[in-house]
C-alpha cells in the first residue's frame, strides 16, 4: 500500500510540474535559509558554553559611578584586582587578559597582529582551548612565552615545528613560542591568534587604571553569593571616605561566562558583542520563511481541490476509505518535503560561504554540532510534511463522492476564505520585512551623511607609530612636503570612537571635592585643524603650548585643555567664560585653552557626552594624514616609503578613518544586509505562491472568461478583473503590516540617540513594491488566459 501511495505521489508531482516546481523551489529555498540561520543561531547560543568547567567560569565586571551618578559598567578592571582576590576561599584560579595590537617580526617577515592577548599562566587551564603542542599548565608559566594558534603557526613557520622559535614583538622583545593551540572556534569571545604570558609585561599593580579583563574560576558555582560579598567588601575598601560621602560607588560583579556574548553590557575582547535582538530577528525570519513556504503548499493543494475532487470521488466509489486517501495525500506532501529538504540541504551547503561573508561569521556545516543540525532537519521534515499535508489531506479526503460524480463538476473550489487569509498573511510578512530592511538602510544612510562635527573624509590612519616628539616632528615635516598631503597629526585613539574614561576636578570656582566624569584624549598640535573640529571660543595650539607639555619631569608641565560644548554646559559656563579656567585632569594641572563645537566622537547610539582633548605626546599610536585631491594610491605609496625609513621595525599598516567609523556600525550593517537578502526571499517565496494560485484561479475561470469575451470584454477588462482580487489582498496585507512594522522600526531606531525619522515614503515604497510585484506575478497568468481564443476555452468545457 505504501509503495503504491509513493508511486501515486511521484506520478502526481510529475504530472503537475509547475505546481510541484513552485512548492519544491519555495520550500527548498525556505529550508536552505532555515538551515543557514539555524547554524548562525546555534553558533550564537553556544557562545562560551562549551568550556569543560563553564559553570565555574566568570568574568568580573566593574561598576563605577561618581557623586551619585548611575554607575558605568565596564568589563575592564584594574590589574591589582586579580592579586587582591586570588586567595579568597571561593576562588580556584584567576586569569587576567590584556588585549593589544602588536607588530611581530620573524626572520624577514613582518606583520601587525590584532588578536594578541596577554594572559596569566592558567589561561589554558581555565579555558579548555585544546593545545596541539605544549602543556596547558606550563606554556605561559614565565615571561616572554607565547602560544600561537594553528593557523598562525602555518603563517609564520609553514610546516616546521614552531615550538622553541623566537618572535620579535614590537621590534623590542623576543618571545619564545611554547605551544600551539587549535584555532579558537567561532563561538568564543576570546578569539586569539596569540596568547603571551602576562608576566612579560612586568606591570606595576594598582587600582588607578582599568585596562584588564579579569576571569575567575570558582571552586563551586554555589559559592557565587559569598564571592559577591567579598568582592563588594573589597570594592568598598578602595573608596576613600571623602569619595563615599560625595556619593561615589564602586563594585565588582561576576558575570557568567556563558552570558558574556549576548547579555553583558560590556564589549567582547576581540570582537563586537552579540545582540539578542538580532538573534530574535533572524529566528523570526527563518521560521517565517518556512511558514510562508508551507502556506504556499497548503494554498496550492486546496486550490487544486476541484481538480482532485474527481479523483477522490472515484477512489471512494472504488472502495477507498477516508484514512487511505488521507495517507495518500500525506505521502504526497512528505515526498515533496523530502525532495525540498534534499535540495535545501544542497543549497545551504553551496550558499554557506556567501552567507558567512554576508553575516561576517565562520560557520561550518557538519562540524562539531553536525548531529544537532541533522536532528533538527529530521524534525523539520516531519513537521513540514505534517503541516503541509494535514490540511489538504483532511480537506480533500473529506469530499463526498456523490457531489463530485453527479453529472458535471458541481464542486466549487472551497476554502477560499482560508486561502485568501493565508495570502494576506504572506504578504503582510513580506511587507513587514521590506519595511524593516528599509528602516535599517535609512538609518545607515542617516549615519553616513550626518554631520559629525569633524571631517573624517580622506583621512588616512597609520597604525603602530612609536617614537618621541622629535622624531614625530621630523616625520610630520617630511609628510607635509608630499603633494596630496594637507595636514598631519597624531593621537592615541580613533577620533570617531573615543573611549578613554577620565575625570576632572579642582575646577576653578568649584569645591575641591567636585568631579566630573569625562572622556579624554591626548592629541598632537594639529589635531583640531586636521580633523576640521571647530572652536567656539579660544585659540588653537601654538608651539609655545606644546613646549609647556614637553617639560620633564611631568610635574612642571602646564596643560592646555579643549572642552566640548556639552562639558562646558555641564560645568555651567558659557564658551567664552570657560577659556582660561583652571582645572585638573587625572593629576594634570592646566587651563582651558578653547571650547570645541560638539562633535560625534563615538557611536550614534550614545548621546554626545563631555569630552576633553589635550596635547600630550607620550601615548600616540596613530598618525592621521588629511589627504586631498590628487591620486590617492600614489600618495599612499609615497607615505609608505617614508614610513619604512622612519619606522623600519613596524610594518606599514594603514586604513581610512571612514573604516573606523563604519566598523562601529558593523552589526547594524550586517543585520541590514542579512535582512535585505532574506526579505527579498520572503517576497519571492510569497510571489511563487501567488503565481501558483493565480494560475489555478484563471484556469478555473477559463469558461467564465470565454463567455465574457464573447460578450465583448477586452483583454484589459479581463486582466483587470482577474488581478483586482489579488491586489485587494495585498492592500489588506499592507494595512496590517504597516502598524507592526512602524512599531518595530520605531523601537529599533530608539536604540540610537541620533536617528532618522520614520518617513512616510518608506511605507509607501514598501507597499508600492509589494503591489507592483504582486501585479506582475498575477497579470502574467491573467494575460495568458485573457488572450486565449474564447471559442477554444468554451469548447473545452
Amino acid at each position: 500500500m505504501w509503495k503504491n501511495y509513493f508511486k501515486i505521489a511521484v506520478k502526481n508531482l510529475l504530472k503537475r510540474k509547475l505546481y510541484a516546481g513552485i512548492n519544491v523551489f519555495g520550500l527548498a529555498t525556505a529550508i536552505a535559509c532555515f538551515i543557514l540561520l539555524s547554524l548562525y543561531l546555534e553558533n550564537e547560543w553556544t557562545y562560551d558554553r562549551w568550556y569543560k568547567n563553564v559553570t565555574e567560569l566568570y568574568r568580573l565586571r566593574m561598576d563605577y559611578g561618581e557623586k551619585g551618578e548611575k554607575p558605568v559598567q565596564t568589563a575592564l578592571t584594574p590589574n591589582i584586582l586579580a592579586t587582591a582576590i586570588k586567595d579568597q576561599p571561593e576562588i580556584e584560579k584567576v586569569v587576567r587578559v590584556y588585549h593589544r595590537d602588536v607588530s611581530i617580526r620573524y626572520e624577514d617577515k613582518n606583520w601587525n597582529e590584532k588578536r594578541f592577548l596577554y594572559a596569566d599562566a592558567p589561561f589554558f587551564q581555565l579555558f579548555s582551548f585544546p593545545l596541539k603542542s605544549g602543556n596547558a599548565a606550563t606554556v605561559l608559566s614565565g615571561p616572554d612565552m607565547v602560544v600561537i594558534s594553528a593557523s598562525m603557526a602555518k603563517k609564520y613557520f609553514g610546516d616546521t615545528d614552531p615550538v622553541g622559535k623566537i618572535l620579535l614583538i614590537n621590534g623590542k622583545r623576543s618571545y619564545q613560542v611554547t605551544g600551539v593551540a587549535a584555532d579558537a572556534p567561532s563561538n568564543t569571545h576570546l578569539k586569539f591568534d596569540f596568547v603571551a604570558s602576562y608576566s612579560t609585561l612586568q606591570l606595576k599593580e594598582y587600582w588607578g587604571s582599568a585596562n584588564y579583563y579579569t576571569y575567575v574560576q570558582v571552586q563551586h558555582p554555589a559559592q557565587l553569593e559569598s564571592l559577591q560579598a567579598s568582592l563588594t567588601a573589597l570594592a568598598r575598601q578602595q573608596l576613600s571616605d571623602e569619595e563615599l560621602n560625595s556619593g561615589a560607588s564602586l563594585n565588582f560583579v561576576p558575570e557568567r561566562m556563558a552570558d558574556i556574548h549576548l547579555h553583558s553590557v560590556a564589549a567582547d575582547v576581540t570582537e563586537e558583542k552579540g545582540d539578542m535582538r538580532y538573534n530574535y530577528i533572524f529566528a523570526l525570519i527563518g521560521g517565517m520563511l518556512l511558514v510562508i513556504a508551507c502556506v504556499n503548499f497548503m494554498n496550492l493543494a486546496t486550490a487544486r481541490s476541484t481538480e482532485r475532487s474527481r479523483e477522490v470521488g472515484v477512489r471512494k466509489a472504488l472502495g477507498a476509505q477516508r484514512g487511505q486517501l488521507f495517507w495518500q495525500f500525506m505521502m504526497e506532501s512528505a515526498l515533496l518535503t523530502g525532495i525540498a529538504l534534499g535540495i535545501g540541504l544542497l543549497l545551504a551547503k553551496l550558499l554557506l560561504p556567501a552567507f558567512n561573508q554576508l553575516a561576517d561569521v565562520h560557520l561550518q556545516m557538519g562540524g562539531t554540532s553536525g548531529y544537532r543540525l541533522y536532528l533538527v532537519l529530521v524534525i523539520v521534515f516531519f513537521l513540514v510534511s505534517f503541516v503541509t499535508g494535514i490540511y489538504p489531506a483532511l480537506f480533500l479526503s473529506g469530499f463526498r463522492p456523490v457531489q463530485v460524480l453527479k453529472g458535471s463538476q458541481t464542486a466549487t473550489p472551497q476554502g477560499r476564505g482560508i486561502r485568501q487569509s493565508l495570502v494576506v498573511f504572506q504578504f503582510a510578512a513580506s511587507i513587514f520585512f521590506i519595511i524593516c530592511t528599509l528602516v535599517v538602510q535609512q538609518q545607515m544612510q542617516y549615519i553616513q551623511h550626518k554631520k559629525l562635527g569633524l571631517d573624517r573624509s580622506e583621512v588616512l590612519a597609520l597604525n603602530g607609530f612609536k617614537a618621541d616628539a622629535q622624531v614625530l616632528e621630523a616625520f610630520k615635516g617630511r609628510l607635509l612636503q608630499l603633494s596630496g598631503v594637507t595636514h598631519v597629526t597624531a593621537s592615541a585613539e580613533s577620533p570617531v570612537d573615543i573611549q578613554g574614561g577620565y575625570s576632572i576636578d579642582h575646577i576653578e570656582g568649584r569645591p575641591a571635592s567636585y568631579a566630573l566624569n569625562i572622556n579624554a584624549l591626548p592629541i598632537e598640535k594639529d589635531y583640531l585643524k586636521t580633523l576640521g573640529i571647530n572652536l567656539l571660543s579660544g585659540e588653537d595650539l601654538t608651539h609655545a603650548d606644546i613646549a609647556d607639555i614637553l617639560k620633564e619631569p611631568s610635574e612642571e608641565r602646564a596643560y592646555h585643555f579643549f572642552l566640548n560644548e556639552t562639558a562646558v554646559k555641564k560645568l555651567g559656563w558659557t564658551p567664552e567664560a570657560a577659556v582660561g579656567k583652571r582645572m585638573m585632569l587625572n593629576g594634570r594641572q592646566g587651563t582651558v585653552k578653547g571650547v570645541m563645537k560638539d562633535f560625534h566622537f563615538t557611536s550614534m547610539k550614545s548621546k554626545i557626552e563631555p569630552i576633553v582633548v589635550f596635547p600630550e605626546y607620550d601615548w600616540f599610536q596613530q598618525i592621521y594624514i588629511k589627504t586631498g585631491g590628487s591620486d590617492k594610491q600614489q600618495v599612499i605609496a609615497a607615505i609608505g616609503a617614508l614610513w619604512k625609513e622612519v619606522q623600519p621595525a613596524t610594518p606599514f599598516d594603514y586604513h581610512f578613518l571612514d573604516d573606523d567609523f563604519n566598523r562601529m556600525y558593523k552589526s547594524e550593517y550586517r543585520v541590514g544586509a542579512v535582512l535585505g537578502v532574506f526579505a527579498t526571499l520572503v517576497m519571492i517565496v510569497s510571489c511563487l505562491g501567488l503565481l501558483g494560485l493565480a494560475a489555478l484561479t484563471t484556469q478555473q475561470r477559463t469558461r467564465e472568461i470565454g463567455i465574457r469575451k464573447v460578450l465583448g470584454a477586452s483583454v484589459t477588462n479581463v486582466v483587470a478583473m482577474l488581478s483586482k482580487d489579488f491586489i485587494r489582498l495585498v492592500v489588506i496585507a499592507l494595512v496590517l503590516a504597516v502598524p507592526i512594522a512602524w512599531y518595530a522600526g520605531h523601537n529599533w531606531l530608539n536604540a540610537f540617540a541620533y536617528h532618522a525619522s520614520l518617513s512616510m515614503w518608506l511605507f509607501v515604497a514598501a507597499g508600492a513594491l509589494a503591489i507592483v510585484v504582486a501585479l506582475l506575478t498575477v497579470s502574467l497568468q491573467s494575460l495568458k488566459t485573457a488572450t486565449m481564443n474564447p471559442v477554444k476555452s468554451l469548447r473545452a468545457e
Partner: protein
Amino acid sequence: MIELQKISKHYPVGFGKNEILKDVDLTIREGEFVSIMGPSGSGKSTLLHILGLLEEPSAGQYLFQGERVDKMNEKKRTQLHRGAIGFVFQAYHLIDELTVYENIETPLLYKNLSGSERKSKVADVLDRFNMVAKKDLFPNQLSGGQQQLVGIARAIVAEPRVILADEPTGNLHSDQAKVIMELFKQLNDQDKITIVQVTHSDLNATYGNRIIQIRDGYIQG
C-alpha cells in the same frame, strides 16, 4: 438482493425542499439486469447513487443482501463498496495520472490484496477485454469506448455482486455503445453479475430483462 422500502430523498432548497424520490419501493433479485429509465431530473441518478451507497436516503429502509445499510457507518459502507458493488460512470472517471493497468488495479489495492493476487486478477481482466497491449497507456490516449471498457474492467476486477452503471454509453457513439452493452449482457449471463443501469436509450434497455420507469420521483407501474 436489493430491497428498497419507502425510500425518499429530498434536498433543502431555500425555505422549502426539493423532493427527488418519493416512497420508492423496489426489489432487485440476484442475477437481474435492470434498466432504470425516465426523463431528465426524474431522480434516476439519485436512485442509483442510493443503491450504490454514495448517497443516504432521507427516509425509508434499504436492505442489501438482507442487511440494513441505510444507517451504516462509513467504514462498513466502504467494505460493501469493496466487496459487492462496482461502478461504471457516464464520464468513465478514470484517474488521469494512472495507466490502464493501474486504474484497473486500484480497487484491488483498497481490498488489500497481495501484489501477486492483484497481478493475476488484472491480467485476467485485461486478457478478457483484449486490452493487454494497451495496459501501459494513459486514459487520454484511448478512445471513449476504450476508456469505458477500462471503466468496466475496473468495475468487475474486484468481482462484485452488482454493477451500477450510470448512463454507461451516454458519451459514446452507437457502435461503441453496442460493444459495451453486449459486454454487460455477457457479464450478466456468464458471470451472473447483477446489473443496474440508468439509460435514456430504449435500445440499451432491451439488453436487460426488466425496465423500471421513473417519473417525478415515483416509480411508474
